[in-house]
């Protein structure tokens, strides 16, 4: 093990980068197009536009979600509809937590007074 300090790196915000087509999404996630199509069928990810698969455009966040789906399937042995359900429930928990934090913020200030 060694320590290595590297100069300041500037990154980009992934979500604000240009959209991806099906081939690019497959390449980022190192997964075959069939898997992506199945994820779209399950509603795990959705193309922003495009009628046919050739014209599909995906938001960059689809890349993160596809990775999550791949890992959940592989690490926990969940099938695709199970993955879809898990991701939806996780999203809902995130939203509820956000709402709770906002309410806590208001309540805290009222206690202050």
């Amino acid at each position, binding site marked *: *093990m*060694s*320590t*290595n*300090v*590297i*100069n*300041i*790196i*500037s*990154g*980009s*915000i*992934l*979500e*604000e*980068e240009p959209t991806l087509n099906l081939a690019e999404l497959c390449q*980022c*996630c*190192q*997964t075959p197009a069939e898997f992506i199509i199945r994820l779209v069928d399950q509603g795990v990810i959705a193309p922003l536009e495009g009628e046919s698969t050739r014209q599909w455009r995906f938001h960059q966040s689809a890349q*993160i979600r596809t*990775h*999550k789906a*791949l*890992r*959940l399937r*592989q*690490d*926990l042995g969940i099938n695709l509809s199970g993955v879809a359900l*898990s991701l939806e429930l*996780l999203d809902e928990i*995130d939203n509820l937590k*956000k709402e709770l*934090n*906002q309410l806590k*913020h*208001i309540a805290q*200030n*009222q206690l202050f*007074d």
Partner: protein
Amino acid sequence: MEYKDYYEILGLKKNAPQDGVKRAYRKLARKYHPDVSKEADAEVKFKEVGEAYEVLKDPEKREAYDQLGENWKAGQDGFQPPPDWEQNFDFGGGGYTQGNAEDYSSFFEDLFGGDRASSGRYHRSGGPSGGFQAKGENVRAKIMIDLEDSLNGTKQSVKMAIPEINEQGQIVSKHRTLSIKIPKGIKEGQTIRLSKQGNPGHGGGEPGDLLIEVAFNPHKLYNINEKDISLNVPVAPWEATLGAKIKVPTPDGKKMDMKIPPDSQQGRKLRLKGKGLPGKNAGDFYVVLQITLPPSSNPKVKEYNEKMRDEIDFNPRSYLF
């Protein structure tokens, strides 16, 4: 090396039946899966659980491990397995059946060997590691930043253990400290992409990217929702009724004059457009009015309120009946 109690990690007794091991593993794997758990050390725990299962699920490895446990003295730091311990068991160079070398502790590797050529499991994006030339895997990390970091685009140091391939072609864990410039206006849940800072490529391929998920530390004054920032501001009842000009602290550390319109009810939101998180679609800054009563122990307050009660015809509950 440090001894690891695989039974304790899985929350099992030494005599747990084989299918109990599987059940305990599955439950903990779901609990600590880094995509499910919000705990900061979920990834470490997930790997520990995987390592413990890798040993205890295999009756032969489990027996070998159990034998070793008897030789273990509590409180002893420098643990060494007896020199001939693996004679009766056939693990030499065998490695584990699945998983990535860097996913396992040195304790595990010293006992069961490490198949360093095996393909990735957790950090890997998925996909084959075969082929002649391939892009390296993306590496994920999480950081907590302050609101000010996103507002100003400040530097942040991130420490991480990243597997690298050394001259002998082995995967070694390298500790890297990266100084990262936080992109201005980044919001909670977004990802910073540092291109080519991930795992090295295979056969001369490009390195993967480092993807860092951003979360915000709670702020003592401001609440952040997507790109909007809000602040609760206490106002006196007469300020709310008559209107007033007050000073409010803005997220950029300045003070700003703000006009409260007359007849502002509790919780009224006043918007300052574009004063939230910066960026292409900058967020807004909301001031939320909190009507705050002066104490009735003050005789003047008491006097004026009594006067209002007696002289003003106002029933706030008329809509209830």
